[in-house]
Every structure is written in C-alpha cells, then in structure tokens.
C-alpha cells in the first residue's frame, strides 16, 4: 500500500519540469508495543513544507479498539488484549496538495510484569498462606511460581495477583516469579515477605468476641497480624462513631416516634463502626449507667450514647460527671428540675440513691477484690444510710436543662436534649450535707461546688474500683471473675501506674489482657465466659456472616430512613432493644443466680424456657436471610457455599465448612465431638446452600456458642 501511494505520487509529478526530490514522511517509534503502555510515534517530513498529519492504525484513521488507537499527535494506545494478528502498521499521512505518507510495522506484545510488593499472610482458616502480589502489567494468563513451583494465581486486576501457598516453617521471605506469556513473554522475579501471625486464631477471635460486637474473618486476620497490644492501641485511637442528633424536622419515618431513628443509629454504629472496642465498652457502660427510652426522649439518648462512647477511654470521674449532667440521665432519674425541698417536702432521692447503689459504690462495703466486707457477726456492712441518701439528694438539687440559644435561663428551662444541664443556684439546697466517709459539704455552697464535692466523694470511695471493674468484666469477659482477677483490674483503677485513679483505658487494657481473660485462648476448658445477651448475639452473628443493609448498599440515607432499626425487632421478643431497659436495674442484674444453682450469671436473667425457644426461631430467621432490610449470602456461590461443595466429597466439604464456622463462631475451638455430629448431619444434605444454613443453625443455636467463653 505504501508502495502504491508512492507510485501515484511519482506519476503525478512527472512532466516537463526539472526533477525535484519527492516529499517524504518517515515514521519512527517502537516496533514492540506492550499492552497497557502507550507509545509515541513521530513523523519526520522532508522535501515539503506541509505539516498537517493524519495517523492511522492498519489504515484506519485513529485506529480501533481491537488494534489500538492513535491520537492526532501520534500517541498510540494498545488495545486491551492482543488482537488475533498482533502485527500492526502505523501510518502517518501528510495532507499536502498531493498527500504523501509513511509507515512503520510493529507487534503488539503482552506487558512487562512489574512487582512492587508481595506479601504472604498466614490464613485465618487452615494452615495455608495468602500470597498477595501488587505491581503492574498483570494478566489473567500471568503465571506465578513460588519457590520454584507453579502456584495457581487468581487475577484480581492488572495490578494485583493472589495465590494460596504453603510456606515452610521459619521462612521470612519466599521467591516469587511472575511470567507473562507470549507474545513477548517476560518474567519478573521478586521476594514475598512472609507475615507470620503474632497471635493465634484462638487469641485473636476470643479477644474480638470480648472487645467488639463480634469477630469477622477480616478482623481476626488483622488481630493475628498486629497482635493484641497493637490492636488495642489502634482501637483506643479510633475516632468515635458519633450518632447524629435526630434531625429537625423529624424524619418522616420517625414522625410519631423518634425511638426507631435513635435505635437505628445505635445498630448501625455497633454493626459497622470501626471503633468497635469503644462501642462495646459504651454498651457495657450503658448497662451500668442505664437510661431508657421507656421514659426519656430518644433525642436525648443519641447524645447520651455519644457521651458514653467519648468517655469510654477517659477518666471515670469525667464519665461520672458527664453522665450526671446529661439531659437523658437527668430526666431518667429526676435530677433534672429537682428543686430544693420546701416545707413539708424532701428532695427527690432517685438519682442520689441509684448513683450510689448502681453507678459507684453499691450497697455494701467491698474488699478490693469485690467480695463483701463483713462485720463481727458475719453480716455485710452498708455503705450508706437513708439520711445520707437524702443528703446527696439535696446536694443534687438546682439543675435544669441548658437554655436554648440566647434564651434567658430560669428554673425550669424548656427541654434541651443535647446540652449538659446547668445550675440555677436559687433552686439549690444550700444547707450542709454529710456525705460518705466523714465528708461534709458545708452550707452555702453553689450547685456546682456541691456537685463536684458529692461526685468527688463517691469517685474516691474505695468501693468504686472493685464495684465497677467487676461489672465491666462481667459484661465483657466472664460472669464469675475470680476475686484475684477483680483485684488486679481494680488495682489499676486505683492507680494506673502513674498515680492516676480512674483511668478507663488502663482499666480496659488490664481487663482484656489479664491472665484470666486470656486463659481460654490456650485452655479451652478454662471455666469462664458469659451468655451472649440477645443484642450481642444478633450483632455477633450478623457481623460474622457479613449481613449488609439493603439501604446502605443502595446508597440511600440510612439515618433518615432509620434503616438499621429493624434489627431490634428481632431482639425485643428476647427482652432487649437498645436503651430500653424496663428500669435503671438494666435488663438483668449483675447478681443474678441461675435457678437451682449457685452460679452467678447476669445474662441468664433473660434466658429461660420461653426465650430459649425464641432464640431458636431467631437463628432460623438469620440463616434464612430473614432479617428485614438486610441481606446475607449463604447461597451455593457464597464463600461458605463454595466451601461446602468444592471437592464434591460430602465429608471433606462438610468438614471444611464446619471448620470455617468453627473459626467464625467458636474461635477455632469447636469440640471435636460437636464437629463430628454436625459434619455427619450436613454430609447427608446435597444442596450446598442447605448445608451452609443447617450447619450455621446448628452452630449458633448450640449452648457452646450462646455462651461466649
């Protein structure tokens, strides 16, 4: 074609004039074109003053998707894949009176692979490693060799390849070679760093069961890699997932009742928040410092939850003060608008009494290990008298809602659900008050001074450490902590090592890293743990199985739609919804003893022959993808479904599936007897999805799962 063109040009310029040199255009550029790498071509024109250029690929101006495209400036972009014939001709045509052109031939070749990093990470399930290769120029047909043997590679993208490999013990790197095939075969060598996990599956998953709203495989993997201490450090630093104030005007879905909006925000935070430890501690605190939307406005509860979450890792005194002045607690236990008693009246004792009984000291004097002190006759010794309750009640008078905007403050102010309460000293009882341990608040003090005096009196009471620490342990680790365990954590409450009292971060670290908390990592028969209460149970299962919210997936406004609220519909029959305890005594008592036994097990206060049946139904709903407004994939094409049918050998596949569930739900500690019963049951099923559902149901309805241990 090029020759023909030249012939035409020669013919036209023939004639009687003196011969002049033919105009020429010479095309230069690479003759090997690599997929994924653009190539600049250049045209050099001689014997002509013309400059207008048109570029063609295989004779088509601008090229095509199949053969590659070329810009008017000669920049060639290869096609996505090698065309049937990988030879192309790049032509430049000069638009003169008599056009002329030049060409060059080139071949399209596979890209040159480049490895920028490679990492082999020990898998959560099984003994294999996941090799992750990052770089450029990867193809679906790229081949990977690890340590000289071919490894089946999964093509993720042109910048990522993944393989499952085995790594000999003790290796810190393994050689990795990536080869792109013909045409233009090219090889790159690199070394993959081997990341050996720092802690076992058992340790990672148990820690997450205690410290979060439920382990996920990703989180287990992460904790294994970074280790316990680094994980806690990350979590202490994680910013609070803040529940937004319920919008004004009220979202349509909550027009008649704002509680669904508030509860939806809570479920969203605990199911999806990255600040899992903070949210879990806030949950424990919310079951100690109880408020309930049974009698307080839900708008005040989002604020209250943020207070607990923000203060979860701070100082206990700050927490106590913020709780005390929160409009939610003020409303719930009537410190709000509690006026100095007039003639014939007493001060409202509600907050004063429960602050002592439930939030700080408890009823009886405690030893530092949480056991009761006894008097000479063997009887427990009360911390406070009725007179002291009334003294604290008077100390807490004079507080009302914060004024809204620039409004003038008065006693009482209109509702303000988001700002801390404020003091109006004219409503405060200024007589002297005799508090605990011989402390007296002198007469004439302001509301604020009396408040800090009263809170300081309680904060410094020696009961607080053992009383609060034991309950935190019960909520997060074990119903029956040994007195020595309580004592060790309470000692950190008393002094964090720098002389500070009430350092919650130090307390939480001590609690979760204590030898008793970690004992069952390596000794599964260590007798501890606690029953998963209904809200934890559903959150744990939903996180493990990766339930997704349909509105969230669709990109809808989940806050305005209260999209996560549906979850609570499945726990309310079991006696729980977020922030809706029947009384300040929480859904269950920390002192609850299982009937007919001496076993202290708080959460069993809600476990009985009625709720046990309801939990079975809930498990069925969960595995049958029946949680309204959520989706879970347990089909045969899901990860578990594939595992359940991969080899075609019913026993092998069932065993692999149950082992995976054992990691997801039982820290890899499923008893072998249990494993074999479930495996033989599901091996009789032929539908992989049914295998997954039934196996999951059997795991999550077992007492061995219901009791987190």
């Amino acid at each position, binding site marked *: 074609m090029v020759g023909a063109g030249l012939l035409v040009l020669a013919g036209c310029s023939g004639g009687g004039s003196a011969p002049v040199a033919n105009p020429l255009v010479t095309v230069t550029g690479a003759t090997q074109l690599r997929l994924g790498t653009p190539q600049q071509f250049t045209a050099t024109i001689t014997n002509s003053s013309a400059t207008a250029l048109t570029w063609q690929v295989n004779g088509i101006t601008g090229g095509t998707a199949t053969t590659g495209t070329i810009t008017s400036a000669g920049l060639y972009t290869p096609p996505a894949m090698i065309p049937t014939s990988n030879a192309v001709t790049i032509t430049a045509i000069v638009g003169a009176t008599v056009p002329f052109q030049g060409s060059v031939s080139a071949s399209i070749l596979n890209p040159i692979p480049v490895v920028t990093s490679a990492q082999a990470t020990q898998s959560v399930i099984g003994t294999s490693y996941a090799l992750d290769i990052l770089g450029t120029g990867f193809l679906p047909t790229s081949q990977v060799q690890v340590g000289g043997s071919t490894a089946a590679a999964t093509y993720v993208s042109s910048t990522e390849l993944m393989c499952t490999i085995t790594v000999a013990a003790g290796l810190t790197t393994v050689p990795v070679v990536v080869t792109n095939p013909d045409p233009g075969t090219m090889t790159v060598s690199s070394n993959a760093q081997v990341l050996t996990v720092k802690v076992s599956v058992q340790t990672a998953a148990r820690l997450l069961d205690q410290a979060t709203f439920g382990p996920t495989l990703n989180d287990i993997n992460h904790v294994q890699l970074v280790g316990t201490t680094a994980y806690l450090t990350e979590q202490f630093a994680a910013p609070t997932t803040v529940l937004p104030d319920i919008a004004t005007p009220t979202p349509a879905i909550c027009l008649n009742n704002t509680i669904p909006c508030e509860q939806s925000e809570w479920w969203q935070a605990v199911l999806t928040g990255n600040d899992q430890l903070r949210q879990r501690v806030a949950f424990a605190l919310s079951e100690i410092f109880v408020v309930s939307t*049974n*009698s307080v406005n839900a708008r005040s509860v989002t604020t209250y939850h943020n207070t607990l979450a923000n203060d979860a890792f701070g100082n206990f005194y700050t927490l106590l003060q913020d709780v005390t002045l929160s409009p939610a607690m003020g409303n719930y*236990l*009537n410190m709000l*608008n509690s*006026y*100095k*008693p007039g003639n*014939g*009246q*007493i*001060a*409202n*004792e*509600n907050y004063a*009494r429960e602050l002592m009984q439930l939030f700080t000291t408890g*009823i009886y004097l405690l030893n530092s290990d949480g056991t009761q002190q006894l008097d000479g006759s063997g009887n427990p010794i*009360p911390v406070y008298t*009725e007179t002291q309750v009334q003294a604290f009640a008077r100390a807490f*008078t004079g507080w009302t809602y914060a004024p809204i905007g620039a409004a003038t403050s008065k006693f009482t102010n209109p509702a303000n659900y988001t700002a801390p309460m404020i003091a109006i000293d004219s409503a405060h009882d200024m007589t002297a008050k005799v508090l605990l341990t011989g402390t007296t608040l002198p007469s004439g003090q302001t509301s604020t001074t009396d408040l800090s005096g009263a809170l300081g009196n309680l904060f410094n009471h020696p009961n607080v450490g053992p009383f609060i620490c034991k309950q935190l342990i019960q909520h997060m680790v074990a*119903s029956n902590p040994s007195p020595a365990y309580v004592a060790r954590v309470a000692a950190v409450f008393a002094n964090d090592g720098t002389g500070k009292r009430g350092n919650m971060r130090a307390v939480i670290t001590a609690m979760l890293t204590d030898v008793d908390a970690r004992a069952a990592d390596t000794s599964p028969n260590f*007798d501890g*743990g606690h*029953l998963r209460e209904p809200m934890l149970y559903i959150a744990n299962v939903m996180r493990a199985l990766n339930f997704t919210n349909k509105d969230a997936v669709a990109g809808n406004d989940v806050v305005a739609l209260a999209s996560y609220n549906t979850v609570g519909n499945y726990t309310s*029959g079991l006696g729980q919804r977020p922030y809706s305890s029947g*009384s300040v*005594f929480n859904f269950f008592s920390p*002192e609850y*003893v299982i*009937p*007919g036994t*001496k*076993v202290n*097990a708080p959460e*069993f206060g*809600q476990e*009985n*022959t*009625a*709720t*046990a*049946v309801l939990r*079975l139904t809930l498990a069925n709903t969960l595995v049958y993808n*029946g949680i309204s407004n959520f989706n879970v994939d347990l089909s045969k094409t899901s990860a578990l479904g594939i595992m359940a049918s991969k080899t075609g050998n019913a026993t092998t596949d069932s065993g692999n599936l149950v082992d995976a569930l054992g990691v997801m739900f039982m820290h890899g500690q499923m*008893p072998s*007897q*249990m494993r074999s*019963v479930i495996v033989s*049951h599901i091996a009789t*099923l032929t539908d992989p999805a*049914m295998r997954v559902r*039934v196996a999951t149901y*059997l795991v999550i*309805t*077992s*007492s*061995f799962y*219901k*009791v987190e*241990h």
Partner: protein
Amino acid sequence: MGVNRRSFIKYASLAAAGNAAGLRPFGALNSLAQGATDYKALVCVFLYGGNDSNNTLVPFDTTGYGSYSTIRGPLALPQSGLIQLAKAPNFSLNGNMPEIAALFDNNAAALVANVGTLVAPTTKAQYQTSGTVVPTNLFSHSDQQLEWQNAAKSGETQTGWAGRIADTISTSYNPNGLVPMITSVAGDTLFCNGAASTPVSVSPGNLGGSSCNEGATECAAQQATAQALLQFDSGLSLVQQDNTITKNAYSYAKTLSDAVQSITPITTVFPSANGLAAQLKQIAQIIQVRAALGVTRQIFFCGVGNFDTHSDQVNLQGNLLAAISPALNAFYQSTKELGVSDKVTTFTMSDFSRTFQPNSNTGSDHAWGAHHIVMGGAVKGGQLYGKFPTLALGGPDDSGTNGRWVPSTGSVQYAATLAQWFGVAPSQMSAIFPNIASFGANPYLGFV
C-alpha cells in the same frame, strides 16, 4: 372518724383470725388428701418500681381525707375523683380503678393494708432501736423486690416462696404434671425458683415451638441434631446450664403447643395494647388447658413496671392504674367464663410503697409498708384486712419522718395465707416460710 376507720379494720382482722384459727388447717389437709381431683391457681401480679399505695387506697371520710390531703400536698388526689368503696365507705380507690372498686364491692376482691417485708412483727420503736433485726436494704428496689419474692430477710436467699411451695408439694399435687407447677409470663424471677424446681417461662402469645424453614423432614432432623448437641458435657458451667434450660425449652414448648392445639378461644375481651392484659390472657389460656398439662396446682407470675414515680406521679401512676384495673377485671371475668373463678386467686406484690411526704419534684420516694389487692371467687372480698396506718409524718406508723410506714402485717403472712388456701399443710409452712413462726400461732390473715 379515724376511730371508725380503725374499728372497721379491727373487725375485719378479727373475722379473719376466727376463720383461720379453726378451719383452715383441716381444709388444707383435706385438699392435700384429695390429691389431683381439684384445681387451684395462684396468680402473682408484680408491680415493679414500688406502687404508691398512699394514692391507691385513700381515706374517704372527712378527717381521714383531710389529713391525707394536707400532708400529701401536690400529690393529693381531689376527693371528687376518688371512688368511694360501698363496702368500706371510709375508704376510696384511685379514680383510675373503677373495675377493682366494683370487684371489691361485689366481694370478689379484698384489700390488705400496710403489708411489707418483715422478719418478725416490728413496732416503730423496735425499728428505731439498734440491734432489731429488720429486712436488709429497705428502700432499695432490687432488694425489696427479692425479699417480697423470697419471703426472707435478705435478697441473698436464692429461692422464692412460690418455688419453695413447688419444691414441697408439686409431687403430691402434680404427680403427672407435664410442665412445672410454676409458670412465668414475665421472665424468670426469684419468686418462681425453688431449690429443686424451676418454672416454665412463656412468652405471651408465643406458646409454641421454634420456627424452621427447611421443610418438615430436614426441620425434624435438624432439631434432633440440635438437641443431640445439648447432651455433650463440655465441662463448662454456663454451657451446661444453658443446655439444661434449652432442653426444657424444647420439651415445654411441645407440651404447651400440643395442649392448646384444639381449644375453644376464650371470649372474654381483654384490653388491647395492655402488657399486663396480654400476660393475664396467656395465663387464662394455660389454665384452660390445665387437664392436658396434667396439673392440679399452678402458680403464675406476671408483672408490670414503671411504678417508680419520683416525679410527675399523679399522672404516671394514674395511667398505670388505669391499665392494670381493667386487665385484672378481664382476667377475673375470664376465670368465670372458664368456670374456675373460685379456684384462681390473684394478688399483687410490689417493691414497696412510697413516702407519704411528697418530694420537691411532684413525686415520692421509696418507702416500706404497702396496701395490696387480692382478687378471686375464693377471696372473702369487700373487706379491708390488716391495719391501716396513721397518716401522720413522724406518727406511730412512720419509720422516720417522711411517711415510710412500718408494716403492720408481714409480707410473709400475706404469702402464707395464700399458700394455706393453695394447699400447703401447716406442717409444711415452716419449710417454705422459715420466719413464719415469729408471727405467732396464727399468722394467717383470712382474706381467702
């Protein structure tokens, strides 16, 4: 007029005493001998939070109402809104309780005045003397709830009085029982727990077994495997405990759902959107199928909360009483429909009553002795039992100065009176109520 009120109560008490002294023990023995041929049920309605008795049962005579309204100040109910009791005209019920007032006047309900937790009969002077043994942690919700339920000196006693009744007599009365003697429709509570016996818990309206979507064959197989997993001894205490509860749950759910399969629905209309009514309706349905359950004695527990009215009391308590009064009445009517109204005795319990003196926040605070309602065809209704307190701050019945009445009747007496009717023999009383001997040879109140 105060004298009149007193003498009325005295009369009622004497009548009760006379009755109990002679006939009750033999009655109890006879019923025990009858074994499984008759039927009796006790129904406990627990008012969580401490119902303010002072605004539930109010003096109506001029002097009585006058001193009431003076001291109660902002909490005093207007006399015009109270319902005067025809059978006890010096008294009235809160205006939100017309159904209970009618039951009282029709002799189907009685009131028991100033009952509270006591270890032994206790006077104000004794209470104020150091060294007198009184119940532990008076005025604490949790402790007083437990002490009402366990009829013991402290909440640390781990069995409830109903549970101990079941421990003692369920073999005699329910030898063929397919479910425990005690049913709770309001979760597990100390009241229901014995040393050996545990209750069946029922979620109102959810009597049956669990749901399963896998199809009949696989559901049956799945359930069999799930139950097999409960048999393993993991050696972990809490896992073992949950295995036991879950095993019982499978068994009771099957028994109950089989029993109610083909019953005629009760036609008595229960108030809707009323938590207590839903619980009582479930209890009525279980009573209806008592024969299929193989029981001749049953104790039921239900409860309703939010009585802790430290503020906005008149409004809050009014709403609560307006809900429980029609619920209780509907339940009584349903027992008539089932032909068992004289075999079912319903009674209230609560943490405590509230301070007669108001607080500065339109509410009242935790107190002690309280008035309670007993309802049923067997109840000697239309009467007030016990001794109504003198409504004076710092007066003869005030434990201090805020109107926390020292109970004139022990809650253990109240419980034992119910137990006696239920069929507990005199010889069995001390095992169930260890403190009962402190209340004399005849501790019973005679209201049923």
